[in-house]
């Protein structure tokens, strides 16, 4: 089970973070420690700042104030490639150039591991093979991305992020636009990666029940502020969800899985 003492051992830590696009402040004064080797889900309504937080975690957005720390060192002190060897982000709805195969895409994941003149190495091959195996895309490696189903394409992108071989993986809405079976596949993959791959995974999800079922840690945002965080069963409270999502749900405690679900 999830252990809270992991929080103390650094990893990704956000300190008094304020994020803004031009003059519009999106996130204000956020303090958050991402527990290591667990699956953290960020929840909140559209525009509550979840994706913005992920962007700041890989330096895509420079904080207006505050810091992102990676193992106690400010992220801004990391070189771009050095950072990309530690944290991978799969943005929401990424678009690949036309005509690429699955393998072409996955091989891009090796970018931060290669220097200008370095040749493609057996290590690179290994990383790609492993990523393809984990995502069960090995048989489809030669297929053009255009010919894949939505779920397969999403797995191909996750494989690219895995080939990056980072210990921290951030996923922005990895299940949006997927049918239920494909969503379940992605969730199982995440669970496997955390359990057996010892990865720290942070995902933005919209499905509260999906989060409750699979996450080890849930963080709820409302209008750029952290409202509640903790183990799923601790944050899945009627008042909290009413406050964060502006809905009035029924909370159901499922004895079999010991998970809480909401009925809207």
């Amino acid at each position, binding site marked *: 089970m999830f252990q809270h003492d992991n929080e103390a051992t650094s990893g990704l830590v956000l300190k008094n973070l304020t994020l803004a696009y031009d003059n519009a402040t999106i996130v204000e004064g956020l303090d958050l420690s991402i527990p290591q080797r667990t699956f953290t889900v960020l929840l909140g309504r559209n525009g509550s700042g979840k994706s913005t937080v992920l*962007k700041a975690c*890989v*330096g*895509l957005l420079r904080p207006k104030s505050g810091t992102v720390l990676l193992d106690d060192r400010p992220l801004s002190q990391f*070189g*771009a*490639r*050095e*950072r*990309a*060897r530690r*944290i*991978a*982000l*799969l*943005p929401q709805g*990424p*678009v*690949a*150039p*036309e*005509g*690429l195969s699955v393998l*072409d895409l996955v091989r*891009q*994941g090796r*970018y*931060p591991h*290669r220097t*200008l003149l370095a040749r493609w190495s057996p290590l690179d091959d290994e990383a790609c093979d492993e990523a393809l195996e984990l995502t069960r895309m090995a048989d489809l490696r030669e297929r053009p991305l255009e010919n894949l189903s939505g779920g397969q394409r999403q797995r191909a992108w996750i494989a690219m992020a895995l080939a*990056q071989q980072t210990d921290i993986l951030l996923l922005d809405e990895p299940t949006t636009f997927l049918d239920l079976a494909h969503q379940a596949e992605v969730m199982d993959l995440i669970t496997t990666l955390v359990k057996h791959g010892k990865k720290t995974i942070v995902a933005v999800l919209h499905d509260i029940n999906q989060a409750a079922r699979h996450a080890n840690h849930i963080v709820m945002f409302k209008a750029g502020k952290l409202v509640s965080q903790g183990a799923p069963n601790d944050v899945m409270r009627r008042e909290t969800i009413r406050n964060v999502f502006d809905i009035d749900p029924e909370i159901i405690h499922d004895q079999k899985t010991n998970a809480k679900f909401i009925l809207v």
Partner: protein
Amino acid sequence: MTPRYPAISLAALLVPALLLASLMLGDQHVDIAALLKGEATAEARIIVLDLRLPRALMALLAGMALGIAGTIAQAVMRNPLAEPGILGINAGAAFAGSIVIVGFTGLSVTVLPWAGFAGATMMAAAVFLLSWRKGTSSARIVLIGIGLGAFASAGTSVMIAFANISDVQRLMIWLAGSIYDANWDKIRLLLAWLIVPIALVCLFYRQIDLIRFGDDVAASLGQRVNLVRAGMILLCTAISGATVTVAGLIGFVGLIAPHLARRMVGPGHALLIPASALVGGLLLMAADLVGRTIIAPVQLPAGIVTALIGAPFLAYLLWGRRHVPA
């Protein structure tokens, strides 16, 4: 052994064939075999060695440069319909040329290419600077490039309206893009200009591979996107600007060559860059040969021939992409 990429291997074989045809065909048919045996007349030697050979090589070189510049533009702008002209290079060169011709009558024609280069570079710089807002975005560059390009074209039209007819004609011929006055000096000049930027493009092909994925993906993989984009635009400008300087404005090669090359070798830039160069070189060499033989003795500028081929090709591209969501 069958080659892995048959189409591009065939294209590579076409280069010497087309070169040979360019040397033989024309007003005067020249027997190359006799020339090689040293049995040709002095006149035939001049025609081949001082006129046709530099001209064919110039077309090859300029076409290669345009193919590479187009490949970079399409990758960096993340737009299959992009070409170096989007950076305002052509419009800037035309505007500067028109200023020289109208504003400084009496100035030698040899200034024209240099004015063109200055105009091209300044336009590309203006497009880049105006689209900078804590970093650049491809969409902004395309929009501002189109806007400034239209502005410069309007300026050119105004200048032309005030020029005298013979100056305008001279300007138009240069604008149409022609390699009729190629000589060895120009080839050396172009080669000297191109060699460093093209070498850099080849060296950084992986950066070009990655930047196509969009800023977020590229940056999260550790690419310094703004730096790479600025660098690639600089290289693209240097390559196409140098080509404009010696060969005038030759449209569509930069658009078409990367597309044809992509069909031959796929989307990876390690192969796409040389393949685009090869296809671009072939296209322009063929266009020039057609331009000077099809209605001989009248010569059609190569730029007009490429436009005649290019416009329908553009329509074909748009037709083929009509189901691709924007």
